[in-house]
C-alpha cells in the first residue's frame, strides 16, 4: 500500500515538550523521602586496598549510609559478562565496590547516601582509604611488554582474548604479490561524552515488593533481568525505566555499572528512594571509553592497484575489565574489508588489559579503526602507483550485482558478515560531485601559489547494522481512537517517538501525532534488548511495522463484520474505517476498537455513537472466535533478522592546514550515506550531522591523555576539547538508497554512520594538503602540536 508517512520529513512529536524544558531526565525526578548518593573513587590506577575508615563519614550529620565492599553481602560478585565469546578466555568484570585491589583511577571504592549531594560529597572527603600502590600498566605497549606488570594477577600477559580469523589464503598471495607494504597505525582513546551524565534512581516499594529504577541507560530490559537475578526478585517485580536520556552514544549501553547495583541495594536497605547523579568529573574516570587500538598491517596489491591480501594484527585496549566482551575488536576485524573485494584476509587481535577505565562500545564501536586502516591502505596504494585515490577505490569496489557479498567472517551477532545490498560507486560519484573533486587539484594549486595548503580527503565504509537477536513492539488502539505503541528499545534523541509513530500511522490511517510511543519502560514492553549498534529503527521499527500490520488486519476484519463487507474492501484513513467508496458511512478507529472487545458495555462518546449506528450484530458462536483471536485492536510482534544488514557511505572534506602552526580548519564537509530506505530523512540527516561532529572531535580535538601513573590528566571539559559550533563546518548530506532485503521496511541502521570515516578522511586530507612534504598520517587523533611535529619529521 502507498505510504503517506514513511519517508516523510515529519517534525518531531517529542519536541514541544523538550523545547519547553519539560523533559524528564533522571535527575528531574523527585520522590518523597528521596536521598542522594555519591561514590568514592580510587585515586590510584593500581593499588592494594589496605584499609578503609568510614567512621568519620558515618558520623557526619545528614549521612544515612556508607557502604564498602564488605557491606554488600551476596551482592558482592562480579557483574554479569554481557557478551561471552569463545576467544575471550580471560574475561573479568567489576565488583560493585572494590574489595582488595583497585584497577583504575575512578573505580568505585565506597558509596555514601545522605540528605543531599552536597553533604554526600562532604562525607566522601571524610573517608580514609589506605592504598598500597602497585606498578601501573598505563598503555598498550606497557601491557604487551615482556615482563609487564599484571593488571589482574591471574591473567598472564594481560591477554583477555586472542582471536584469529582467516579468509582465503593470504600467505600464498603475499608470497607472489607484485607489491607488499607494511605499516603501524594507531588510534587512541576517546569517549562519547553525552551532555547528560549517568544517573540511577531506585525506589523499593515494600508493600508491592516492587523495585522501580529510573536509569539513564540504553538497555533497561537487560538491566531489569540482571537486577531481578541479583536481588532474587521475580522479573515482573522489577521495573526499569529509561526516561528522557540526554545522549547515550554507547556509553549507556554498558551494564552493569556499579551504581546500577549499589543504588537499588541502598534503596532496599534504607527503605527510601535513593538517587545518584554522576557529575562530569566522575564521568571522565568511570564512564566507559573506547577507541584505543594499535595495528600492524601488511597488504599486497598488484600493478593495477587491486588489493589482493591483508594481514592485520592488532592490540585492543580493553581497560581494566571486559564488561562488554570483545565486541569492539570483533567489529573492527569484520569492518576492515569495507566496500572492497578482499578475498584473502588474515585478522588477528589480542585484547589487553590496562589500568584504565574499562572499554565498551562508543558510537562506531570498532569501525572507525577498521576504516582508518583500510582507507590508509587505499591512499597508499594510490600514491605508490600514482593512481587517483578515488580511482583506486573504484577499481576495488564490490559492484552492485555482486550482492549478497560474504566477507567470510563471523560478525558481532554470531552470524555471517554478509553484505545484503549496496552501491558503493554511486556513493563515491555523489561525493565527488559534492566536493567538485575533479576540479580540486586546480583549486589546490592556486592556493599553493598563495602559500596556502588545502587538502581533500575521502573515506569509504561499510557498516554492519540492524543485528538481532530481536526486538518487539506492541500496538494498541484504545476506545477513544488514540493509538499506543510500545517497544523495548530506548531513545536518546533518535526521534523514535516520531519515526515509530510514522510507521504505525501509515498502517492505521492516522496522523503520527495520534500515535503515542513508549520506549524504554520494562512494564510497557517486557521483551527486548536495547538501543545500540544502529539497530533500533531497523529491528524495533520492523517489529512496529509487523504489529501495526496485524492491528490493521484486525481492524479490517472487525469492520468487515460490522459493515457486512469483505475485509479487502475496508480502508483506514484519517482515523476512520470504512468500506471503500463509502466513506460517509465510517466508523472511527476507536469505535472499531470498542467493537473488537465483545463486552456488554463500553464507555465514552465513541461507544454511544456506535450503539446508535445500524450495524450488523455479532455472529453466532463464541464471542472471541479462534479466527478473531484476542480481544481489542492490539497486537504484539517480534522481528528477528537473519543477520545484520550493511549500510555504507562515503564522506569527504576539504581542509586547510597552516604548516607554521599545525592548525587545521575545515572548509567543507560532505557525507553521502546509504541506510536503505529512510523512515524520516531529517532524522537520518541529523544523525549523520551529529556523528560527523563526534568524528571531527575524535580526529582533531578530543583525546584522553593518561600519564604513566594511569592518571587521566585532562579530566574536564576545559582540557578534553569537545568541538563547538565554531569548529564544526557546515555538513552537506546526500543519499544513496539500496534497500535491505532482510527486513519488511527495507531499512538499514544510520545511528553511527557519521562518525565512522572521519579519522580516515582527515588523515587523507592532511596527507593531500601536505603532499609535497611526503607526510603520511598514521595516528589518530591528531592535534596541532603533533601535526607540526610530524611535518617537521617529514621535512627533515
Amino acid at each position, binding site marked *: 500500500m502507498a505510504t503517506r508517512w514513511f519517508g516523510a520529513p515529519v517534525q518531531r512529536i517529542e519536541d514541544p515538550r523538550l*523545547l519547553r*524544558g519539560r523533559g524528564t531526565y533522571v535527575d528531574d525526578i523527585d520522590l518523597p523521602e528521596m536521598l542522594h548518593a555519591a561514590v568514592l573513587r580510587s585515586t590510584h590506577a593500581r593499588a592494594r586496598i589496605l584499609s578503609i575508615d568510614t567512621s568519620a563519614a558515618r558520623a557526619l550529620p545528614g549521612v544515612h549510609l556508607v557502604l564498602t565492599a564488605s557491606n554488600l553481602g551476596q551482592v558482592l560478585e562480579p557483574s554479569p559478562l554481557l557478551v561471552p565469546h569463545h576467544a575471550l578466555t580471560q574475561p573479568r568484570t567489576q565488583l560493585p565496590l572494590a574489595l582488595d585491589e583497585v584497577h583504575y583511577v575512578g573505580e568505585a571504592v565506597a558509596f555514601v547516601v545522605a540528605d543531599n549531594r552536597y553533604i554526600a560529597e562532604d562525607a566522601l572527603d571524610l573517608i580514609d582509604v589506605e592504598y598500597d600502590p602497585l606498578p601501573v600498566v598505563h598503555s598498550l605497549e606497557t601491557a604487551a611488554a615482556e615482563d609487564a606488570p599484571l593488571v589482574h594477577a591471574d591473567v598472564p600477559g594481560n591477554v583477555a582474548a586472542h582471536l584469529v580469523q582467516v579468509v582465503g589464503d593470504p600467505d600464498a598471495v603475499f608470497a607472489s604479490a607484485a607489491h607488499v607494504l607494511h605499516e603501524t597505525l594507531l588510534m587512541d582513546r576517546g569517549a562519547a561524552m553525552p551532555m547528560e551524565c549517568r544517573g540511577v534512581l531506585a525506589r523499593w516499594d515494600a508493600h508491592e515488593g516492587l523495585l522501580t529504577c529510573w536509569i539513564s541507560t540504553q538497555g533497561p530490559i537487560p538491566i531489569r533481568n540482571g537486577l531481578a537475578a541479583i536481588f532474587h526478585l521475580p522479573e515482573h517485580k522489577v521495573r526499569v525505566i529509561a526516561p528522557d536520556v540526554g545522549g547515550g552514544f554507547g556509553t549507556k549501553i554498558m551494564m552493569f555499572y556499579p551504581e546500577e547495583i549499589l543504588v537499588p541495594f541502598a534503596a532496599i536497605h534504607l527503605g527510601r528512594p535513593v538517587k545518584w547523579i554522576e557529575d562530569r568529573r566522575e564521568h571522565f574516570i568511570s564512564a566507559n571509553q573506547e577507541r584505543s587500538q594499535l595495528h600492524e598491517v601488511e597488504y599486497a596489491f598488484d600493478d593495477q592497484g587491486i588489493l589482493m591480501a591483508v594481514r592485520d594484527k592488532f592490540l585492543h585496549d580493553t581497560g581494566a575489565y571486559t564488561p562488554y566482551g570483545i565486541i569492539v575488536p570483533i567489529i573492527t576485524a569484520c569492518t576492515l574489508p569495507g566496500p572492497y573485494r578482499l578475498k584473502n584476509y588474515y585478522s588477528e587481535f589480542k585484547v589487553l588489559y590496562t589500568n584504565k577505565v574499562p572499554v565498551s562500545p562508543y558510537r562506531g564501536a570498532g569501525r572507525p579503526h577498521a576504516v582508518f586502516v583500510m582507507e590508509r591502505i587505499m591512499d597508499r596504494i594510490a600514491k605508490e602507483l600514482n593512481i587517483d585515490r578515488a580511482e583506486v577505490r573504484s577499481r576495488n569496489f564490490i559492484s552492485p550485482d555482486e550482492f549478497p557479498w560474504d566477507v567470510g567472517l563471523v560478525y558481532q551477532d554470531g552470524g555471517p558478515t554478509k553484505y545484503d545490498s549496496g552501491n558503493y560507486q554511486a556513493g563515491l560519484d555523489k561525493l565527488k560531485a559534492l566536493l567538485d573533486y575533479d576540479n580540486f587539484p586546480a583549486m589546490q594549486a592556486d592556493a599553493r601559489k598563495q602559500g596556502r595548503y588545502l587538502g581533500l580527503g575521502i573515506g569509504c565504509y561499510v557498516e554492519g547494522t540492524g543485528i538481532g537477536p530481536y526486538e518487539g513492539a506492541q500496538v494498541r488502539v484504545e476506545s477513544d481512537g488514540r493509538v499506543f505503541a510500545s517497544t523495548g528499545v530506548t531513545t536518546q534523541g533518535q526521534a523514535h517517538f516520531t519515526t515509530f509513530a510514522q510507521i504505525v500511522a501509515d498502517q492505521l490511517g492516522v496522523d503520527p501525532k495520534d500515535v503515542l510511543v513508549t520506549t524504554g519502560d520494562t512494564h510497557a514492553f517486557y521483551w527486548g534488548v536495547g538501543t545500540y549498534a544502529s539497530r533500533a529503527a531497523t529491528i524495533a521499527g520492523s517489529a512496529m511495522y509487523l504489529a501495526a500490520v496485524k492491528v490493521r488486519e484486525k481492524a479490517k476484519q472487525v469492520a468487515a463484520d460490522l459493515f457486512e463487507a469483505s475485509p479487502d474492501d475496508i480502508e483506514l484513513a484519517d482515523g476512520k474505517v470504512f468500506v471503500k467508496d463509502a466513506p460517509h458511512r465510517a466508523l472511527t478507529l476507536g469505535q472499531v476498537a470498542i467493537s473488537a472487545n465483545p463486552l456488554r458495555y463500553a464507555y465514552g462518546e465513541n461507544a454511544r455513537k456506535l450503539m446508535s449506528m445500524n450495524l450488523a450484530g455479532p455472529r453466532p458462536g463464541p464471542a472471541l472466535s479462534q479466527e478473531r483471536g484476542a480481544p481489542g485492536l492490539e497486537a504484539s510482534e517480534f522481528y528477528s533478522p537473519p543477520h545484520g544488514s550493511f549500510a555504507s557511505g562515503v564522506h569527504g572534506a576539504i581542509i586547510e592546514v597552516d604548516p607554521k602552526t599545525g592548525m587545521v580548519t575545515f572548509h567543507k564537509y560532505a557525507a553521502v550515506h546509504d541506510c536503505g530506505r529512510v523512515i524520516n530523512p531529517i532524522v537520518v540527516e*541529523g544523525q549523520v*550531522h551529529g556523528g560527523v561532529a563526534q568524528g571531527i572531535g575524535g580526529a582533531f580535538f578530543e583525546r584522553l591523555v593518561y600519564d604513566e601513573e594511569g592518571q587521566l590528566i585532562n579530566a574536564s571539559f576545559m582540557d578534553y576539547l569537545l568541538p563547538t559550533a565554531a569548529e564544526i563546518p*557546515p555538513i552537506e548530506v546526500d543519499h544513496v538508497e539500496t534497500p535491505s532485503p532482510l527486513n519488511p521496511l527495507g531499512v538499514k541502521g544510520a545511528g553511527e554512520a557519521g562518525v565512522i570515516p572521519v579519522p580516515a578522511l582527515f588523515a587523507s586530507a592532511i596527507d593531500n594538503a601536505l603532499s609535497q612534504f611526503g607526510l603520511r598520517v598514521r595516528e589518530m587523533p591528531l592535534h596541532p602540536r603533533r601535526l607540526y611535529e610530524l611535518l617537521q619529521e617529514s621535512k627533515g
Partner: protein
Amino acid sequence: MQEQEEETPVFTEECTISVTVNGHRYEQRVPVRLLLSDFLRHEIHHTGTHIGCEHGVCGCCTVLLNGEAVRSCLMFAVQADGMVVTTIEGMAGTNSHLHPIQQAFQEKHGLQCGFCTPGIIMSVHAMLHENPNPSDDEIRHELSGNICRCTGYQNIVEAVRLAAERLREHHTEVQ
C-alpha cells in the same frame, strides 16, 4: 539578604533569599553554598535548566539573569537575591504557544536528545536581542559557549537563522 543597611554584615552559612523566576517571586532559606542551578532545579522545581559539567564550559545550565545569559552552575543562589531570572520555562508565553525561537528549533530539527537545548535557547534569546541579524559565522561564534553532542550544530544554526528572521519580521510588524 535580610541584613539591614545599618548593621555590619556577618558571615553566615544560610540566607533567606528572594528571587523572581519567570515573573514569580520565590522566597526561600538556602545554604550559601547552594548553586543557582540546584536552587532552580531542586528548590523551586524548574528542572528545564540542565547540568552538564558544573565547571562553566558546556552551557547546559544557561539562564538569563537580569536579562543577561549566565551559567547558573557558576553562581550561588544567594547571589541571585533580589534579581530576575528567566529560565526555559519562561520562554513560551502565557498562552503556551512556543516562543519563535522554540518554534524555529522545532521546524529545523535543531534538537535531538534535548539536554543542551534549554541552555542553547536561552543563549540564543540573549544573542538575538543584542544582534538581531547575525551572519552564520557570528551565530557559530556566539554559540560556541554551548556544547551539543547530538546535532553537529548544523540544524541549530539554521534554526537560529530562521528565528532571527521571524523575530525581525515581528519587530517590524509591531512597529
